[in-house]
């Protein structure tokens, strides 16, 4: 029995036991359902082994939505606990675990895959490619991300959740102060997912640089493609830092090294520095593709070309460069002195300039436009004022002397939610609504969609604006409770109400998907929004090979030119198309990585050695495998094309 004790949750509660039961029942139901409807083969052939960027995108999307709800439930619990003074809903330990998982899940397992989902689905279509440069690597990226996310998520029912904050600062995250295996989960699950992300970065950079349609020069790439390129460039530079930091943290916890410990020469602030050298660029990895989505949407529904294309591109490149020069602003209060703080204060404020350029360019894109308030556009319109609030409070935080007062308070919490929710989450929901018809062949209900956007915005304002005030009134972040005499009560109640309204908004998204799946018309055109770029030039649903003939792009908006100026998109005749074969290997490697991570978390050395060998064996097998893909014949293409044209 002693062996199994380690898997017990160190600090259980009825909610955790209920979750265990719920998880087991759901798993059983899924297995029973798949068996009953004889879908195992379908699942394996069409999804688990797929290397198609569109399907991988959809799998990322499903994971992101699942994680959105996991993180969202965490958030509601946190706000409920803080809604009243001296509340007893959660104790300190549970509160700490929940805000830790909320942060990790939302940033790494919700926002990141959401962006990956849109990048995977849209970028190859937008540049007129048949797939990404390395389709099988892409599948491996997904499965590593997915297994990392799952490993992280089982922590709360097996062995205990991490409880040192999503920043996991040492020495708090070290063995002395964080005794459960929770932080091992953090180190290893993020490591696995992070390796996947790094591979995505390489994959998409290659794809965008090498696989664009003829005529599409760098300065004719659509804005979302540009933003993805820059984001992936940041990934390639930033993620190795995280990989190293996590490896050092893992060694501190499991092998007794002293990188970040309090004695034997350990430096606790080294972790904070490494973490934020990755962590700050990370937020730009999230926000730049979001900016790209907004650029596409605003241009489409203002019925105008994007204003200041060049300055949009340059500003993104400048932001990417700056993103590596500001990390110390996350700890102005570390005591590094006035000079260092001044330098980082100035670099941080400087980021406001290129960001401001983007805001003004979007505003000028609306100028002389013909603005249609569709759901995606509504998100974009709500984004501009809300994000501006978040942006200017960012400038306030950048003033390092004043930051001594903002740091570690609800003011900071309000700020970063103020940029991430309207910035990233709204963009992803806008992108989801915008690209939904291309993904699934029907549109999401506009009325429910608009209700959702308004509820989320109102909920957002109610939830986060009060935090600016309580922050300035001395409410520190990550406190599981406060006394009535502090006077934080009423505003925290407002926050809770806001969070509940946002919760309703997120439920409406699910309802909208359900409702539209049942009732929405399947009779839509390939270009339902009257858009401007190549992804709308192919059929809905998109055939396996994306474009029957390679499109020709002569401007930033080739489809718009085709519609208005008689530009000929498809000059070539059909030729046989070379496509990659499906492969079970990425999924299998992912599963081995899961077992590897699990063994690592609990220090089960024998399984760890076996799985490590397994990883190398599968990699070797893959290397010696001769698989040159397959060809789709011209007859087959013609058949598909006729069918799709007819179906429309």
């Amino acid at each position, binding site marked *: 029995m002693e062996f199994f004790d380690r898997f017990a949750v160190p600090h259980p509660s009825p909610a955790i036991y209920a979750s265990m039961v719920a998880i087991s029942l759901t798993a059983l139901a899924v297995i029973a359902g798949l068996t009953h409807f004889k879908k195992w083969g379908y699942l394996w052939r069409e999804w688990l082994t797929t290397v198609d960027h569109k399907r991988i995108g959809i799998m990322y999307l499903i994971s992101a939505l699942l994680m959105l709800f996991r993180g969202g439930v965490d958030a509601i619990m946190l706000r409920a606990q803080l809604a009243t003074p001296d509340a007893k809903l959660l104790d300190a330990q549970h509160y700490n675990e929940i805000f830790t998982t909320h942060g990790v899940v939302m940033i790494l397992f919700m926002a990141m895959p959401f962006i990956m989902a849109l990048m995977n689905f849209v970028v190859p279509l937008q540049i007129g490619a048949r797939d990404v440069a390395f389709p099988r690597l892409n599948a491996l990226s997904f499965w590593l991300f997915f297994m990392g996310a799952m490993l992280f998520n089982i922590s709360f029912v097996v062995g205990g959740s991490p409880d040192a904050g999503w920043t996991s600062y040492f020495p708090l995250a070290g063995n002395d102060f964080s005794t459960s295996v929770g932080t091992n989960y953090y180190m290893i699950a993020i490591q696995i997912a992070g390796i996947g992300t790094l591979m995505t970065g390489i994959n998409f950079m290659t794809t965008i640089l090498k696989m664009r349609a003829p005529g599409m020069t760098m300065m004719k790439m659509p804005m979302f493609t540009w933003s993805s390129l820059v984001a992936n460039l940041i990934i390639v530079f930033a993620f190795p830092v995280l990989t190293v930091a996590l490896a050092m943290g893992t060694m501190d916890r499991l092998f007794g090294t002293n990188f970040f410990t309090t004695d034997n020469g350990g430096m606790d602030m080294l972790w904070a520095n490494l973490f934020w050298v990755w962590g700050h660029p990370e937020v730009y990895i999230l926000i730049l593709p979001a900016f790209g989505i907004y650029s596409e949407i605003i241009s489409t529904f203002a019925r105008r070309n994007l204003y200041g294309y060049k300055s949009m591109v340059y500003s993104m490149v400048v932001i990417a460069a700056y993103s590596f020069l500001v990390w110390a602003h996350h700890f102005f209060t570390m005591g590094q002195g*006035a000079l260092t703080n001044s330098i980082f204060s100035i670099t941080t404020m400087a980021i406001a300039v290129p960001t401001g350029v983007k805001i003004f360019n979007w505003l000028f894109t609306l100028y002389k436009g013909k603005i249609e308030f569709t759901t995606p556009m509504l998100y974009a319109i709500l984004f501009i004022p809300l994000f*501006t609030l978040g942006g200017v409070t960012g400038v306030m935080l950048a*003033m390092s002397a004043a930051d001594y007062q903002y740091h570690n308070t609800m003011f900071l919490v309000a700020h970063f939610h103020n940029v991430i929710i309207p910035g990233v989450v709204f963009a992803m929901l806008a992108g989801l609504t915008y690209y939904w018809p291309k993904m699934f062949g029907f549109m999401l209900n506009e009325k429910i969609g608009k209700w959702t956007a308004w509820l989320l915005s109102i909920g957002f304002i109610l939830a986060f604006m009060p935090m600016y005030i309580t922050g300035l009134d001395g409410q520190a972040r990550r406190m599981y409770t406060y006394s009535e005499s502090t006077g934080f009560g009423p505003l925290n109640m407002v926050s809770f109400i806001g969070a509940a309204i946002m919760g309703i908004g997120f439920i409406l998204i699910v309802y909208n998907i359900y409702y539209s799946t049942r009732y929405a018309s399947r009779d839509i055109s390939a270009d339902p929004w009257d858009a401007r770029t190549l992804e709308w030039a192919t059929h809905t649903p998109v055939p396996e090979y994306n474009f029957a003939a390679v499109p020709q792009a002569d401007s930033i908006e080739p489809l718009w030119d085709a519609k208005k100026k008689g530009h000929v998109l498809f000059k070539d005749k059909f030729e046989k198309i070379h496509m990659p074969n499906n492969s079970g290997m990425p999924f299998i490697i992912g599963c081995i990585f899961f077992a590897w991570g699990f063994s690592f978390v609990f220090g089960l050395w024998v399984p760890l050695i076996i799985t490590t060998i397994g990883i190398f064996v599968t990699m070797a097998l893959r290397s010696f495998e001769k698989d040159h893909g397959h060809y789709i014949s011209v007859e087959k293409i013609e058949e598909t094309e006729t069918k799709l044209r007819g179906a429309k």
Partner: protein
Amino acid sequence: MKIKWVFLSIILTIATVLTGCEPLLVLDPKGPQAQIQADDIMLSIWIMLFIVIVVFAMLAFMLIKYRASKQDKDYEPPHIEGSFIVEALCIGIPVIIVVFLSIMSVKSNYEVEATPKGYEDKEPLVVYASSSDWKWHFSYPEENIETVNYLYIPTDRALEFKLYSYGPITSFWIPQLGGQKYAMSDMVTTLHLAADVPGEYMGRNANFSGKGTAENVFDVKAMPPAEFEEWVDEVKATAKPLTEDKFEELLEPGHLGRSTYTGTHLEFSPPPSSENGGHDHGSNKSQAEDEEHADHDKSSEKHSEHDNH
């Protein structure tokens, strides 16, 4: 769009009503450093408000003027590449604002990192503030006394806090006297504060340090110098000496009320040796530790003698 403005104004009203009764701690400074920070905050709020209004107004204008329902069915929006002048303005004005704020920020940085202005004439009171899970220990080396979880300070005298931690990183924060700074286990940081006005203030650890973070608070009382001297004398007359054993007991994780001692822990448990980010590495440290231990043995002998009396 209207709904949004209605909601915004409701929220603003709620915010003003809720906070109108009492000023926010950070914006109600009782010392020169907090004053600098509050001034910076208000200045930046006004400048940012200007930017927010400009953006909101531009957005409202665009949405009202160029929405599809207001336009001709056949209206075809023009193709506009961008204009050098407009884009130069969009870069130029923010650059001016950022330059101005940078100058303000740098100026304030040097001010908050030095002895407060107007207090340079008197020697600052040095207080070693160290945290342990989840308490604060205040050692007054000059007065040779130590308190737990409460801090008495004289007004009109610069305060120099030497911060370090017996555990996770914490952050020493008295909002009404000035912003926070980290306390860490491997180096000492310095925080310059001063109190202008006698009164009781809230102090806390602002950095997450585990289960007890929320209750990791301390009371601060600023009093006129004469009263402070009186208090010191009283402590010296009445409090028990802080022994090493007692201090070890205080360091045990948990929550404690206030307590007061004569003597400080600095003698037998000195702060991390070097300041400004210096670190002890490898053998040096263990050597130092050995010496420490030797000292400990002596001092504990002394204490035991003392107890026998």
